[in-house]
C-alpha cells in the first residue's frame, strides 16, 4: 500500500445561490476591487492508502459521492498525487 494525496474541490452547482460568495464579492467591491463574481467552495485534502494511483482515484471518486459532497446541490472534482511525508 502506498499513500496518495487526494485533492477535492467541492462547489455549489451553477444556478444555486451562493450567499457567502455574494457577501465576499460585495466586500471586495466596496474595497474597490474590479470584481464580477465570487464563488466559495471547499478544498479538501485526504491522505489515503491504496495499491495504485488509479485505485486511489477510484476511492476518491466514491468518497466524494458518498460523503464529501452533497449531490443535490454540489459538484466536485478530485485529483490524485503521490504523497511523501
Amino acid at each position, binding site marked *: 500500500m502506498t499513500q496518495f494525496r487526494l485533492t477535492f474541490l467541492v462547489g455549489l452547482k451553477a444556478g444555486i445561490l451562493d*450567499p457567502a460568495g455574494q457577501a465576499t464579492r460585495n466586500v471586495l467591491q466596496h474595497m474597490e476591487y474590479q470584481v464580477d463574481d465570487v464563488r466559495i467552495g471547499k478544498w479538501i485534502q485526504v491522505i489515503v492508502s491504496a495499491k495504485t494511483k488509479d485505485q486511489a482515484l477510484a476511492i476518491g471518486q466514491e468518497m466524494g459521492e458518498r*460523503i464529501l459532497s452533497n449531490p443535490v446541490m454540489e459538484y466536485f472534482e478530485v485529483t490524485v498525487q503521490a504523497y511523501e511525508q
Partner: protein
Amino acid sequence: MNNDLSVGIVIFPGSNCDNDTIAAIFALGAKPVVLDYRLRSLPVLDRVILPGGFSYGDYLRSGALAAAAPIMDAVEKAAANGLPVLGICNGFQILCERGLLPGALLPNPSGKFICQWQTVRVANESPLFTGLHQGRILRLPIAHHEGSYRTAQGQLADLFDRGQVFLQYSDPEGQSHGLTNPNGSVANIAGVQNRNVVGLMPHPERAMATYLGSRDGADLLASWLGMGENAVC
C-alpha cells in the same frame, strides 16, 4: 395517554437537543428510549426521532457526517419497513443528507445563525399527524445556521403535487411570502415528508409550555404520537 408507546431518540456525538426532546416525549406520556449512534440494529420501537444539535460539530456539512453513522443503516431499514421517523432541525439535515427526504438545507443567505419565534402553517394534512389540520398555525422557535431548504432542479413541483410539503413559514394569519421567510427556503418550506419520514426545521420540543412562549410544540408532537391534539399533560 399511551405509556406503552416507545420513542427512540438517537444521540449522535454533538447532539444537543437530545435532553430537551427526551423531556418533551416523557412529558407527553410516551416512553423515550435513548439510542446510541453506534448501534447497528434498533430495538422494538414505535417511533424514532433524530433530534437537533450540531452532530459531529456540523463539520463538513450539517448532518453529513451523522448521515454516515452506523445507526443510520438501521434507521433507513426501519423507515423502509414503515417505522415513523421524525427529524428535527439537525435531524432534518441528517435525513436529507441520507437521502431519506428530498432536498438539502443550505446556509442561511444572511450567513448568520438565526434564533427567533416563528409561525408556521400546516400545508398538507398528514396521516402521520392525527388531528393536525391543514391550515393550522403553530408558533415554534427556529434556531439554525443552515436552514435554507432547497430542492434539486425540477423537484419542487413534484413535492407540492405529492403533498410532501408539510410546514411552511408564514405570518400569524397563515400567509406565506417573502417577508415571512426567515432563511430563504424555497416556497417558505419549513418541513417535508416522505411517506413515514418527516423533517422539520422548527423545534417543537422547545414549545411545550406557555411560560416558554408557546405550547404548540406539545400539540405537534402529541399528534405525531397519535395522541390527538388534546392529549397534552
